[in-house]
């Protein structure tokens, strides 16, 4: 009996599932991380020094500890506590928090970029605090930081490969299983690399285009 079988068309469904799972967890992390990041970034832009120091320290931990360690630590910890989560749930939580840590800085600088005089002008028209946030500060601030936001989002897509270490069947883990069956590591890994490139490159070009357009 042959232990290894070569890559074939029948593997395409399996590969597609891996791709979709990568996209799925990335999209979840980018959306949840951006929403939380918007909230945290706003709180940081609005708060005094002491609250900022506290939040900053928490975010520093999230940003400084390697993602792969956070993933393993979190999964091990909740497992030991008796609440094991499936790899998707655990991966989404950690990847979203990690994304939030970076997004909050992006959004904070966006909020800070809106001139105080513009806010005063809006208030003088009778807009209340929340209306000014909703109609003036968020749209102006978020436009200014769109290229940075896209940069973080792209790195999240690439970082999502790390969720494979806790057993989530995304593209890299799918590829590893195919490699152990087919013994064709070079071809498969080049394919995986190409996939990430095909997603990231057009998006980063688009970011550069928007950046240039905004400079005019």
């Amino acid at each position, binding site marked *: 009996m042959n232990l290894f079988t070569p890559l074939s068309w029948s593997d395409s469904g399996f590969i597609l599932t891996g791709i979709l799972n990568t996209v799925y967890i990335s999209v979840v992390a980018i959306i949840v991380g951006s929403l939380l990041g918007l909230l945290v970034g706003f709180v940081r832009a609005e708060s005094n020094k002491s609250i900022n120091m506290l939040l900053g320290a928490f975010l520093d931990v999230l940003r400084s500890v390697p993602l792969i360690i956070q993933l393993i630590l979190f999964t091990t910890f909740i497992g030991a506590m008796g609440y094991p989560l499936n790899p998707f749930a655990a991966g989404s939580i950690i990847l979203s928090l990690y994304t939030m840590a970076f997004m909050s800085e992006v959004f904070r600088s966006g909020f800070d970029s809106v001139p105080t005089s513009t806010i005063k002008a809006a208030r003088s*028209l009778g807009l209340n605090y929340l*209306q000014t946030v909703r109609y003036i500060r968020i749209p102006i601030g978020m436009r200014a930081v769109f290229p940075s936001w896209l940069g973080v989002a792209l790195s999240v897509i690439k970082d999502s490969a790390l969720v494979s270490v806790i057993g989530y069947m995304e593209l890299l883990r799918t590829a590893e299983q195919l490699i152990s069956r087919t013994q064709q590591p070079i071809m498969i890994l080049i394919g995986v690399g190409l996939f990430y490139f095909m997603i990231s490159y057009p998006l980063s070009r688009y970011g550069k285009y928007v950046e240039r357009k905004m400079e005019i």
Partner: protein
Amino acid sequence: MIEIKGVHKSFGDLEVLKGIDLNVNRGEVVSIIGASGSGKSTLLYCINAIEKINSGNIIVDGIDVHDKKTDINKLRQNLGMVFQQWNSFPHLTVLENAALAPQIVKGFSKEKAQEIATKELIHVGLGDKLHEYPTRMSGGQQQRLAIARALAMEPPYMLFDEVTSALDPELVGEVLDTLRLLRDDGMTMICVTHEIAFAKEVSDKVAFFHEGLIEEIGTPQQVLDNPQRERTQQFLSKVL
């Protein structure tokens, strides 16, 4: 009418307003002149409650601006304000800039808000710019947009804070023309300005501020042509 009674205002240790009394009747144009740091702009900010006051009262049509119970967002609808910097909202078109507040503050339908905004924009001469973005316009045009944006709330009072100071000299005229237009409409205005000739031309009353106090107040002829106080004379000799 706007009644300002004994208003004191400090920034930390620095007392900027040291007891200002001033009444502005409906239909009146009052210009405030004086050196930088004399408290002119601060007074406007206090009338609109952008700055708090330390003591005294500012009463607009019987409503105490700085009373805690006053709904300040509602009151501000009566007090249009235009600043030295035009502060256009860069993410909105000219029309959207002017229609935003009527729509979300007054709750008008989008159509009605845009109708009012269009009317005011045509009034200030921006009828052909409705769908442009303000960042593509000159400072003078953006300042006229700021005036139209404030007018779209249909306020009975307008406050102007050195609205021509940040403009290139060749653009000052078009903004002053817009202010003349408003005066002719009978708008009640308080103008903090460095344009002495303009103040003389449009004002019913001119107040000269010096170090947080009104040093001299009266008709333009009294204050600008025949100033009685030495400090007024000194100031005018420097700027004229």
